[in-house]
């Protein structure tokens, strides 16, 4: 067994190429504790960077180059991810589930015309895309959505309401699942659409939430309610065939259930808390000499190692072309649950100061207070802890002779292929 990410000479050369390029192209951007504070100007700079990355195939490096991706293996993709991470950014450097999730569904299920039309726009950063899944009455039971699409000539007419959508500063497209056969059987009555957001009849309204987090530079900041009032969309935008939407969604849900997280990212919060505990004295003694604080920090550390290793295992298996079954949801479940225990450890160690965002007293420029909220917010996206458990149970075959098959993924290049 070998846990090293040994880069080959070719990969090391690539690493220095990426490093040099990023030094010339990454704009000065503040590391907001709360992503909702991202300004329009900052967002514009992120989009510009995204398009520049897109031109080099580095925005979605693992996607096929014929559609605007980089055609790179997971190792090269990881190098780009690592280098962007130094700037507190990710691929893409803004919230976009078109490339992270939707493009995989289009790759697997789209017609040649649809791939040629949609994928280059997504993969080069020309457009950004939100995902529209949850509805007021459909959360964990995603297949029960009631937003409808009714065929009308060469178009469909879409009506309904989606919640927990997108981010701040708008989007050019959305992908969504809608009901196309109100009388059809469950899982065989849905369809998957790529929806231009400038169509008449679409209204976007921000939701008032505890916090909206996300992955560093790809954090979303805001979630919206999106209303569809008889929105006319061409039939061309239906991907994967009418009433086949649940299968199409299976592809991106598979990725969302634990395959999104970078395998290399250090636990920033652990580093922050350790550094802060070392620098703090209480009652005239360093905080780290308090045995209770030591216990809390060690718990934090151990939890963090397990989360890291489960994600690392998943990455290594994928890099070797091994199909994951329960592992994605297992890592995701661990990440969600340990977020809560870490938040409690931080509150224990830091006291009420962990809860304060006041500029004079806030810890780590507000990142600690945001983490207290984020740990709760993190419990539901991509499926609750309970939904992850349902997936694990089905994939392991608990109580079943037949194990559930994972959703179909686009093939990924193996290391060094």
């Amino acid at each position, binding site marked *: *067994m*070998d*846990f*090293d*990410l*040994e880069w080959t000479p070719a990969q090391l050369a690539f690493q220095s190429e990426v490093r040099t390029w990023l030094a010339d192209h990454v704009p000065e951007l503040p590391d907001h504790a709360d992503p909702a504070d991202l300004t329009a100007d900052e967002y514009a700079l992120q989009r510009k960077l995204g398009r520049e990355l897109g031109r080099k195939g580095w925005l979605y490096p693992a996607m096929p180059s014929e559609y605007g991706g980089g055609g790179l293996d997971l190792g090269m993709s990881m190098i780009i991810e690592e280098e962007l991470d130094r700037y507190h950014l990710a691929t893409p450097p803004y919230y976009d589930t078109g490339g992270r999730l939707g493009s995989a569904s289009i790759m697997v299920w789209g017609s040649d015309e649809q791939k040629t039309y949609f994928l280059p726009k997504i993969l080069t950063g020309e457009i950004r895309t939100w995902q529209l899944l949850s509805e007021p009455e459909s959360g964990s039971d995603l297949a029960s959505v009631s937003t409808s699409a009714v065929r009308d000539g060469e178009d469909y007419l879409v009506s309904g309401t989606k919640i927990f959508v997108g981010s701040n500063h708008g989007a050019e497209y959305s992908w969504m699942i809608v009901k196309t056969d109100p009388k059809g059987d469950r899982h065989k009555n849905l369809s998957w659409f790529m929806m231009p957001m400038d169509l008449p009849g679409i209204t976007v309204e921000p939701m008032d939430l505890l916090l909206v987090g996300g992955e560093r530079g790809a954090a979303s900041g805001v979630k919206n309610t999106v209303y569809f009032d008889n929105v006319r969309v061409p039939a061309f935008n239906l991907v994967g065939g009418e009433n086949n939407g649940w299968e199409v969604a299976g592809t991106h849900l598979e990725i969302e259930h634990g395959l999104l997280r970078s395998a290399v990212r250090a636990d920033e919060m652990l580093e922050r808390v*350790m550094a802060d*505990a*070392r620098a703090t004295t209480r009652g005239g003694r360093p905080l*780290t000499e308090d045995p209770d*604080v*030591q*216990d809390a*920090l*060690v718990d934090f*550390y*151990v939890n963090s*190692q*397990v989360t890291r*290793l*489960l994600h*690392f*295992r998943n990455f*290594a*298996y994928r*890099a*070797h072309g091994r199909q994951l079954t*329960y592992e994605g949801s*297992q890592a995701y*479940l*661990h990440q969600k649950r340990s977020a809560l225990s870490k938040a409690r450890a931080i509150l224990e160690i830091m006291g009420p100061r962990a809860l304060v965002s006041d500029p004079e007293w806030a810890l780590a420029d507000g990142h600690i207070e945001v983490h207290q909220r984020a740990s709760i917010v993190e419990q539901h996206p991509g499926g609750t802890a309970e939904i992850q*458990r*349902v997936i*694990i*149970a089905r994939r*392991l*075959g*608990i*109580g*079943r*002779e037949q194990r559930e098959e994972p959703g179909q993924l686009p093939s990924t290049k193996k*290391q060094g292929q």
Partner: protein
Amino acid sequence: MDLNLTEQQIMLQSTIRELRERDFTKEALVAIDAGDEPLSAHWPGLVSTGILGSLIPEEYGGVGASLADTAVIYEELGRGPVPGPHFSSGIFAALILIEGGSEEQKQVLLPAIASGERVFAVAITEENYGWGPQFTNTLARARGTDLIIEGTKLYVHDATAATDLIVATRLENGTTALLHIDAHGGGVASRSLPGFATGLCEVSLLQVLVPRSAQIGATEDGWAVLDRVIQKASLILSAYQVGGLSEVFDMSLLYSQTRRQFQQPIGRFQRVQDHVIDVINYLDAARWTTYEALWKADESRDGAIAAMHTAATVSSESYYYGCNSAHDVHAGIGIVREYGLTLHTKMSRTLYHYLGSPRYHRKRLAQALGL
């Protein structure tokens, strides 16, 4: 980066698996545990695989394998769990001799351990229980050129099966000495301790006379040697716990599929599913912290010590809690001895404190992290 076993490791694993499935069936393990069948009847087969010499360098009659290769063996043995002095002798005592022994001690004793001719047990802890020099009260007083040992060692693994002992003692100058003694010599008496534990013994030492040459690592304090040994041995113990928990998971999964209540497999109930999922979550946490720590130790990487303490903490806790969850899945059937789950439950308790409890390893981890 490659998280697969090497071809050689896969061969090693299947060799040990064949042995286990032939000589250590569930029926045999239950009978050994109940005292209805002597372990000694199964011992020669185990010895013949050469596992006792796995960590011993080739020049001393061993295999000279890495910690990771040796862990493959122990993960497989843990699946039984296969009891007996293989760990005490082939791992713990062998590492003490490798780390601290004189050239002569190594040349004489290590080949005998590797071949199974001598079986060692290691007597460290006492009534005043703990893993550290401050817990050693057994005295070794000078008498001429000899030492006289007096004291009682407790919770010694496998002492009744041993031909030789390594005993931690306190010298008159306050330092710790590791002394090699004959398990059947004058003044030495070992007995098994009955209860909810596997292989724990009491060793009483009454006026035991040994020459000074019996001391292992005479040039440094015995705890300095033990500290280094525990860093390696506990990784092998973690692998054994990972193996044990793998078997516990397989039993739980199969039971969830085959046991029917309310006209359906019990695994259809999400409350039961949660317990099975808990087992695999404990298992994978133990597995990957252990594998990474083994790799770091073999490759002498930064953070190897922190990784070892992390693995020891997670493996001991995971085996313990994983067995609890498995009992939740199995309910009444789980406590029927012949079913075999209790072999693991008992082993998870027995190993919980061995080479340091999770609490001990957490404290050491805090030190390793510079807290």
